């Protein structure tokens, strides 16, 4: 019997990216260091072509292919485009930094692009195996990227930590998936959901599996009590990699949450909601409070990420379309802010100097009023103060959580975002109210300056007119999830 050839059209963007990455990989072999800009250029082209392929695909209802292991829907496409654009900006931000630190190599591009491919697979996964495949492709790229600065003991340590803990999390996730498989006899997300909702499934086994899955997910997203790796990896990795880890994969991570919990395990919602409440509350509290004590800005941003992921979970645990849309909006805008914040750190760093402590931002307003304003915008957006997009991100998750009836959770989280405001304010304080210690002029390539300025402006403009992005994601969620 002949096996039917699966419909490959829905996976075309992934296939295009894979082919182009292979081209980049091969072409790079024939280049020496002076010509490395060509690799950079080709990588950007690969990303943009993939984005174009995604955008030009005809609108349709969700299409399943590869025996229902892969889904192409509006939510997936939207998040993929956002993740790809983020990666493209990351390439631009990190170019000068990587050149100065001897990291501007072929493997840097291919690892980053393969990790991006992993994100795309993860976003489109409709089956436990595809989810795992995408996740590991993403994670393996990240492990290697953190260790890219081979001679740095700090980076190597961070990579080791990341790898060991990440492997443990994958193990937890797999174990949970196997329990669910044992309970339901299915691996496809829809089949699992159908089996769970018939009520013939052993609830206890399914719940135990769920605990492991939530733990694994929480690990990957970096929320308390599975957050230990976040501060160390953020601090230890070269800033260019921190920028990567802190932004694009988070978008894929939220898609992962929505697919797995919101689709596959939706019938167990009342169980995972309770777990997520605990995780969200702990993340908000620990992230915000611990961030105050940090003097290293990368570490501070690591704890701030933990608290932001707590907010994302508030949207997810509402377990409604509104909640998933809010979480997607939050994560999209968060990656914009993350790009801005780490971009500023990269801008202030230069050959032989890492701008890593909060002190390095001292007197920035005197050195460059414009970039101080950009950083101000990023910080108030992270603190959730209007007129910045961060405010509307918080507003939408809070609305979703309140609509789901979690009044006290909302009150608790707004109180903790007050705590959070303090350390963001401290950055504004050192920029505007302290004298500069470092009077070195701000360097930075032209394209980086322009992009970073646009990044700041985007945070502001989306803070005034959030509607387009909001309706895009709303529409995507409504179209894709039942």
């Amino acid at each position, binding site marked *: 019997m002949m096996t039917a050839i699966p419909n490959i059209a829905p996976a075309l963007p992934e296939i295009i990216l894979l082919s182009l990455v292979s081209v980049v990989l091969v072409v790079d072999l024939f280049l020496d260091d002076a010509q490395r800009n060509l690799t950079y250029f080709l990588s950007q082209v690969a990303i943009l072509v993939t984005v174009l392929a995604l955008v030009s695909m005809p609108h349709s209802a969700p299409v399943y292919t590869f025996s229902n292991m892969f889904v192409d829907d509006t939510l997936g496409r939207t998040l993929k485009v956002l993740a790809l654009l983020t990666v493209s900006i990351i390439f631009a931000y990190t170019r000068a930094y990587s050149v100065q630190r001897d990291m501007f190599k072929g493997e840097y591009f291919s690892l980053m692009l393969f990790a991006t491919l992993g994100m795309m697979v993860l976003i489109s996964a409709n089956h436990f195996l595809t989810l795992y495949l995408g996740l590991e492709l993403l994670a393996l790229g990240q492990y290697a990227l953190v260790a890219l600065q081979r001679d740095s003991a700090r980076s190597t340590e961070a990579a080791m930590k990341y790898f060991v803990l990440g492997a443990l999390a994958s193990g937890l996730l797999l174990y949970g998936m196997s329990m669910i498989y044992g309970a339901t006899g299915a691996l496809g997300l829809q089949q699992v959901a159908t089996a769970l909702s018939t009520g013939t499934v052993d609830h206890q086994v399914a719940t135990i599996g769920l605990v492991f899955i939530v733990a694994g997910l929480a690990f990957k997203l970096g929320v308390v009590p599975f957050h230990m790796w976040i501060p160390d990896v953020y601090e230890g990795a070269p800033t260019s990699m921190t920028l990567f880890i802190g932004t694009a994969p988070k978008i894929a991570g939220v898609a992962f949450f929505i697919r797995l919990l919101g689709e596959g395990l939706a019938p167990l919602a009342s169980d995972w909601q309770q777990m997520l409440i605990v995780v969200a509350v702990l993340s908000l509290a620990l992230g915000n409070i611990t961030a105050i004590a940090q003097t290293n800005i990368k570490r501070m941003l690591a704890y701030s990420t933990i608290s932001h992921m707590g907010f994302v979970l508030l949207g997810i645990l509402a377990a409604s379309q509104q909640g998933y849309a809010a979480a997607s909006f939050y994560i999209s805008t968060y990656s914009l802010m993350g790009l801005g914040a780490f971009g500023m750190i990269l801008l202030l760093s230069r050959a032989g100097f890492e701008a890593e402590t909060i002190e390095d931002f001292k007197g920035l*307003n005197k050195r460059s*009023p414009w970039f101080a304003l950009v950083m*101000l915008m990023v910080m*108030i957006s992270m603190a959730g*103060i*209007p*007129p910045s997009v961060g*405010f*509307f991100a918080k*507003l*939408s998750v*809070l*609305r979703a959580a*309140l*609509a789901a009836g979690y*009044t006290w959770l*909302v*009150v608790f989280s*707004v*109180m903790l*975002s*007050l705590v959070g*405001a*303090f350390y963001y*304010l*401290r950055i*504004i*304080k050192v920029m*505007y*109210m302290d004298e500069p210690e470092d009077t070195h002029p701000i360097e930075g390539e032209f394209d980086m300056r322009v992009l970073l300025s646009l990044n700041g402006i985007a945070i502001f403009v989306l803070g005034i007119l*959030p*509607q387009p992005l*909001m*309706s895009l994601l*709303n529409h995507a969620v409504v179209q894709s999830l039942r």
Partner: protein
Amino acid sequence: MTPYLSLSIWVPIIAGVLVILLGSGQDKAPLARKLALLGSLAGLVVAVPLYTRFDPALASMQFAEFSPWIPSFHINYHLGIDGISMWFILLNSFTTVLVVVAGWEVIKDRPAQYMAAFLMMSGLINGVFASLDAILFYVFFEAMLIPMFIIIGVWGGPRRVFAAIKFFLYTLLGSLLMLAAFIYMYLKSGQSFEISAFQALQMPLNVQIMIFMAMFMSFAVKVPMWPVHTWLPDAHVEAPTGGSVVLAAITLKIGAYGFLRFNLPIAPDAAHYLSGFMITLSLIAVVYIGLVALVQADMKKLVAYSSISHMGFVTLGFFVFNQFGIEGGLMQMISHGFVSGAMFLCIGVLYDRMHTRKIADYGGVANTMPKFAAFFMLFAMANAGLPGTSGFIGEFIVTLGVLQANFWYAFFAATALIFGAAYTLWMYKRVIFGEVANDHVRELKDINRREFALLAILAVATLAMGIYPKPFTEPMHASVNKLIQQTTMKKI
């Protein structure tokens, strides 16, 4: 129809952006100052029709502008004013001009950024008073904090950073709870952030109390009411003169305005239920803070405490729920805008010359600065509530309103008139009269033309309001009556 409200919001903001775009070089400073003055004057000019074209017979919102802003949240760009909010937009636009002039030569460090911060803040404050949509209100309410934070933190006194952060966090604490209350009411009211929809919402008493307290946290910090007032002396003392003027004259009014626009009409039953609590806090502010003001050694701190005490009068008037109380409170707010602004400007005049605010460092200033002494005398009298000045009108009407409600409330409130006279005039005596205290005082130069013009304008305003308050009260009647109606209606 000309969108006067949008103009009064966006003209100063755009002027501020233009000023900041000039760049912060010292050579650009004269141009920046002139552009800032032009921007603030333009802001005042577009605000004037709000008074001249205002129809005092109507209680409804006038100059309304409406367009959808964020449809997926049902948030609208909805502006409008009644006889209550109109005054504060005018007062704010007026104060901005004074503040720009007051900072003219005094601010040497990055004047463009200084002026731009004030202009943007002015536009945002106008937005706070003009918003009829709760989220729009919130956006303006919060956004306003950022320029103020920077003004205090960059151009302030020695402990400016501490004061700026304390100011910011205190204010944010309250407003976040208010945001949670807004979202709650949004869900209850069938997905609308319109303030009028909130006002129409029927809620049981316990819910009303929660909502009232959440909004109370926000506005009480702004007013500020005892015991959440402690940010104010710090912020006032450390802020540059212009910052103190705007804080005292305008931002404190936002808190009191919030009570009138949100707390009373949205949760009237809770307001009645908690009126004893509110009146107690107000009386503590009036009496206790009045005593605290008496012992201050720093002039700016003294005026800061006197502001808290005067704002205690305002909240006291609001929570007796009668026309005298509320209108008196509003008059007191406007008057306090003039008088406290003027007091801070006077202290600024002295500080610019002597670089000290300690009362003990002065003495006999009248000998070297006679013109200044005359102005300062007038404002001190107005601060003490002398008949014929604006300070008297507000305090007198509030006391009348409170007397209708309860004799003992009025009794305690009236003691504030005595304390007010005591601390203001005692300070005045120690600073202005007597022998010339030291060589620094002997070398003082009297006010220049710019300072004279500033103080003269405020003196005219103070006296005009004190002698003939009718143009001020008339546009209020209809709106205040409607408010009282809303307040007496049961919503349970």
